[in-house]
């Protein structure tokens, strides 16, 4: 298949200037007094591409930039650099009005089912809102209520729910409302930012099953953000692992879980608890914590916690390189396998 991907992101960068008072920013050093402008390097050159019907997951720990990638693609943030192509069109610099038709192709589902629904709106109005934004022709608007009813039924809510307010629903039901809202404009791409992490495990399974069914039914593509490796293993076709704003490994799911190459991916997999008796996996225990995105380490972003790091890692930033089977890894170990002592 040589179909153009629904989403194609190239070298995306997202930097935030952080405030702080004038006095906080004044720095005195050997060269005299100067005014510093601290910058959070949230996303540092991330590329990814998702085809129709494909589910790509981004995993990583808090602060790795996975949510920022999602929000930047959804153009909630203004990207600092890079290209975001939806159906081949670069939307990175689109203005508000230009974005409107794009939003019919791309919708978002949020983590918190409590904060992401307007408490003063009825369910039917919440779900209809994106659709009404898109259709200004009276005839088409007349068809909206029926479509909303169909959608609510499809996500497992019944007709009488349409007239209720969000507080009358449980967390799982609210997430269903959020999904119905995203589907209302029949998008091609859904960006889901931790859609199940606020839910109990039995409800989580319901929502994951629903999202998979909808993918098959509507040929949706998902960008699925999660910190939970077992959820990602269940739902994703391919997985990108992020650390400190960098993509450190990117591979089809089966390849990644069978043969993780980056030390961070290996550590993540070995740290994940499991109900099943432990599989035979190496254990890489990470020490220390993620460095600040205000002050990135030189060379490899992971070297401060990496058990294999050597001189080269501090001097040179490893680039993502293809290692076959669709897997790419950003690590100097690939070129120096003799240093991989485990």
């Amino acid at each position, binding site marked *: 298949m040589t179909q153009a991907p629904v989403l194609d992101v190239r070298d995306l960068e997202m930097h935030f200037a952080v405030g702080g008072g004038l006095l906080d920013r004044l720095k005195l050093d050997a060269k005299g007094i100067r005014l510093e402008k601290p910058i959070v390097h949230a996303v540092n050159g991330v590329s990814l591409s998702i085809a129709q019907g494909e589910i790509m997951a981004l995993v990583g*720990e*808090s602060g790795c930039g996975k949510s920022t990638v999602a929000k930047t693609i959804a153009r909630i943030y203004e990207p600092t650099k890079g290209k975001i192509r939806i159906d081949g069109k670069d939307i990175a610099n689109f203005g508000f009005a230009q974005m409107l038709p794009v939003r019919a192709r791309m919708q978002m589902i949020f983590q918190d089912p409590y904060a992401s629904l307007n408490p003063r709106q009825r369910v039917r109005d919440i779900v209809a809102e994106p659709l009404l934004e898109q259709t200004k022709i009276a005839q088409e608007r007349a068809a909206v209520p029926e479509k909303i009813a169909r959608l609510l039924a499809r996500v497992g809510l019944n007709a009488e729910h349409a007239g209720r307010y969000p507080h009358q629903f*449980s967390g*799982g*039901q609210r997430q269903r409302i959020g999904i119905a809202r995203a589907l209302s404009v029949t998008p091609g791409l859904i960006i889901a930012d931790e859609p199940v992490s606020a839910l*109990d*495990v*039995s*409800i*989580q*399974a*319901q929502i*994951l*099953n629903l999202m*998979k069914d909808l993918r098959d039914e509507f040929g949706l593509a998902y960008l699925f953000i999660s*910190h939970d*490796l*077992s*959820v990602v*293993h*269940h*739902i994703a076709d391919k997985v990108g692992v992020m650390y400190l704003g960098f993509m450190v490994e990117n591979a089809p799911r089966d390849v990644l*879980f069978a043969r993780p190459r980056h030390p961070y991916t290996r*550590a*993540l*997999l*070995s*740290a*994940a*608890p*499991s*109900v*099943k*008796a432990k*599989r035979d996996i190496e254990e890489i*225990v*990470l*020490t220390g*914590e993620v460095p600040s995105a205000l002050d990135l380490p030189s060379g490899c972003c992971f070297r401060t916690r990496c058990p294999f790091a050597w001189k080269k890692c501090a001097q040179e930033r490893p680039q993502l390189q293809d290692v076959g089977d669709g897997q790419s890894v950003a690590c100097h170990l690939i070129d120096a396998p003799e240093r991989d002592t485990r």
Partner: protein
Amino acid sequence: MMKDAANTALLTVRNLRTYFHTFSGTVRAVDGVSFEIGQGEVMGLVGESGGGKSVVGFSILGLIDSPGKIEGGEILLEGRDLVTAGEDHLRHVRGREISMVFQDPMTSLNPLHTVGRQMDEVLRLHSDLRADARHKACVDMLESVGISRAAERLKAYPHQFSGGMRQRVVIAIAMLANPKLIIADEPTTALDVTIQSQILKLMRAQIADKGASMILITHDLAVVSEMADHITVLYCGNVVERGATRDLIETPAHPYTRGLIDSIPDTSERLDRLSQIPGSVPDIRNLPQGCNFRDRCPRAQALCAQKEPPLTPQHNGLMAACHFPLHPGERL
């Protein structure tokens, strides 16, 4: 570890009932919960939100405030009942005999005091040590939970620590007075997975080192299966199943336990669909007659609507409250 030896149990909870009397009805958050913990044992208390697991923890420490009230039952710590004990005795118990680790390490530390002062407070209240000995004990404890330059870090405030470090401090405070029992309420839920595994290892080592017991309250069966000696599963304020960890995880007798385990995706196998428990937890102010789980249970029959199932012995020493329990290896 010791099992079923009632006379050596460190903590025995019998028929505990904690209710909350609200304007919209009585919430029977904990309704007849019993269990036992021996010395050196780790017990996992699991269930979904609203199961009553945190309320059990708070009840043991006597931290239930109005409109909540312990309506009945016994909480015996080495034979002495904490339900009927006065506030003076409870104050002596808290921190010294039983200590607690909460979920959110930011809100369980006082932002206005240094970490050192908050640690010192425990020893001031619960030991006869002099100031310099207390300081040394704090430094040692902070080092043993993996915080380097401990003497210096004692002077720091909670906001100067990261989430994982703060949880280490909270654990250090909980361990300081050498308590016999630690109640950990979702201790790693707010943490990243690599930090979580560090903290779990630390807690395990500390407990083994001091011979303390632990109640690990969590919604995460994977965490509990790696930490606990045995597990108690709560649903709507009742114990639905309990037993040794491996037996309960591998051959559960209660359909709810089976459903919970099956709905966790696992990286060792790939299923097209996760099995799911239909519906959601019922309104606890308005529980159905008979078995609380019957509306969501694929095995429910007429009897389940009439009679509440008692906790009865099952295979492999498990106890389950179900009229139609699963046999070993049976699926839903």
